[in-house]
């Protein structure tokens, strides 16, 4: 039936995917907000621990006073929700049950399509995060604003780059299902290793020296730590731009790695039954 296919310009295909992913994400907005709040519950533990450490006085640990630490912990939580994508699960499932075949037959770029499919929930998570952080800040936490307009704009840019880095890591993790029967173990390693090395749990500058060196050479720092260090004004001007440069380096390196890995994973792919 010739009438069923409407020839659209290439970009529209991605536009349609984006609209679908946004609708999908919006349909679950209630449970997204609820999960966000439930996960904040364990952030409260960290807030109490650090709050006790800093006490009422003007204690300073490294570059942090209590105001900066509080801001760090709360925004790190929001950033983590923003940068985390479900793409590794999507891919692992599609590979396991064979649905990936449908994706492969579509005349669009696979990596780009998977990215666009995640943009809807990322956008929603970003907006929900910003709104909830602002509300919580006004009511309870009184978080620090960025010191300069430059820090504000640059940290937003860094957050977007952090999302892309995180997406590419997750994308490759998903592809690992072509080699592993079950990639749950590897997923845990990447997820929890990433949690530590991204600075979600503790700011990287407070790590013991050797661990700070490990983190400095890992791509995970680009996801949470970099936007936050810039947001807090702990890196300014040239130093801040240099950190964004490191993010761009990881973005390119991981993009090339994903491009390299994808055809190899597809060669390993076995679809059962028919």
């Amino acid at each position, binding site marked *: 039936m010739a009438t069923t296919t409407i020839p659209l310009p290439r970009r529209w295909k991605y536009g349609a995917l984006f609209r679908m992913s946004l609708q999908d994400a919006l349909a679950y907005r209630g449970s997204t907000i609820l*999960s966000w709040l*439930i996960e904040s519950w364990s952030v409260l533990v960290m807030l109490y*621990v650090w709050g*006790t450490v800093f006490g009422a006085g003007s204690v300073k640990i490294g570059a942090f006073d209590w105001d900066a630490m509080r801001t760090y912990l709360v925004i790190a939580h929001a950033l983590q929700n923003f940068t985390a994508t479900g793409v590794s699960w999507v891919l692992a499932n599609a590979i396991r049950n064979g649905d990936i075949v449908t994706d492969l037959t579509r005349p669009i770029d696979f990596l780009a399509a998977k990215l666009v499919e995640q943009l809807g929930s990322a956008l929603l998570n970003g907006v929900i995060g910003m709104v909830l952080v602002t509300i919580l800040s006004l009511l309870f936490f009184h978080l620090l604003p960025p010191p300069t307009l430059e820090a504000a704009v640059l940290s937003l840019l860094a957050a977007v780059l952090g999302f892309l880095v995180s997406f590419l890591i997750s994308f490759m993790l998903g592809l690992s299902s072509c080699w*592993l*029967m079950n990639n*749950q*173990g590897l997923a845990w390693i990447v997820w929890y290793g990433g949690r530590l090395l991204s600075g979600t749990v503790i700011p990287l500058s407070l*790590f013991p020296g050797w*661990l700070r060196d490990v983190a400095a050479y890992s791509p995970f720092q680009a996801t949470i730590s970099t936007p936050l260090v810039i947001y807090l004004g702990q890196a300014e001007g040239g130093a801040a731009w240099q950190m964004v440069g490191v993010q761009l380096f990881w973005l390119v390196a991981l993009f090339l790695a994903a491009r390299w890995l994808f055809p190899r994973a597809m060669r390993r792919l076995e679809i059962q039954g028919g």
Partner: protein
Amino acid sequence: MFKRISRHARLFLRLLYMHNRANVEYRGDFWLKILGLVLRNVIGVVFVYALFSHVETLAGWSRAEVMMLYALAVAPRGLLQLFCNGAWQLRNYIWRGQFDQFLTRPLSPVFQTLTLTMSIEGLGTLAVGGAAFAAGYAALSLQWSLGAWLYLVLVLIGGTVLATALDVGMHALVFWSRDAGQLQWFVEQSTEFAQYPVALYHRALQVALSTLLPFAFISYYPLAHLLDKPGASAMLAAISPLVGFAFAFLMSRIWHAGLMRYQSAGS
């Protein structure tokens, strides 16, 4: 009664053997999973380590003491993963109408639910907990009596019973609503409060952690007593191992009420 229990015990051992054989079938996946859970818990240890490189004490507790507290807080989850990690599957079983099979067999449905999964990677959790506990014990040069060790075993059993009971009770809410998983997640997250001295928290939270979310009883109250911390309550330490069993009774009420409501998915 005795025959019934011994049959469940025999089946439990068989299931343990079977699950673990399946678990190690793919050796690569098995080691990755162990490593993953080691890493998950190492994060907590690294946090304590990093924290105490900047401060001396936390609410009067030293690094070694907080390490032991952390170990006691995570160990019950490790034991649960190892022996009775099936409750999270309840939701899918109910949705697909597969729960019916549990009701037709001459075995306790809660037993069948709990033994759906036994994850050997729980050893990863226990390894980190054990190491943190041993490190703290050595650093404090403690010399506990046999009685203290037996008490500790009871606390661990009580903690595991508590974790399992809450796991079943909260997951059983899917008998009422499909989206009940969020509450279970909330309760599981609350365990993290037990990793640090409960004295840190707001008064209302301390009350919550001793009543509705009684995780202070799996680590803080027992250890405060064993380490003879100022203000430790012998009474709270004495009832600590029992709290899990009290909650097991409460959660079994929820479970049975849920079971009464169960209607198969139909076909």
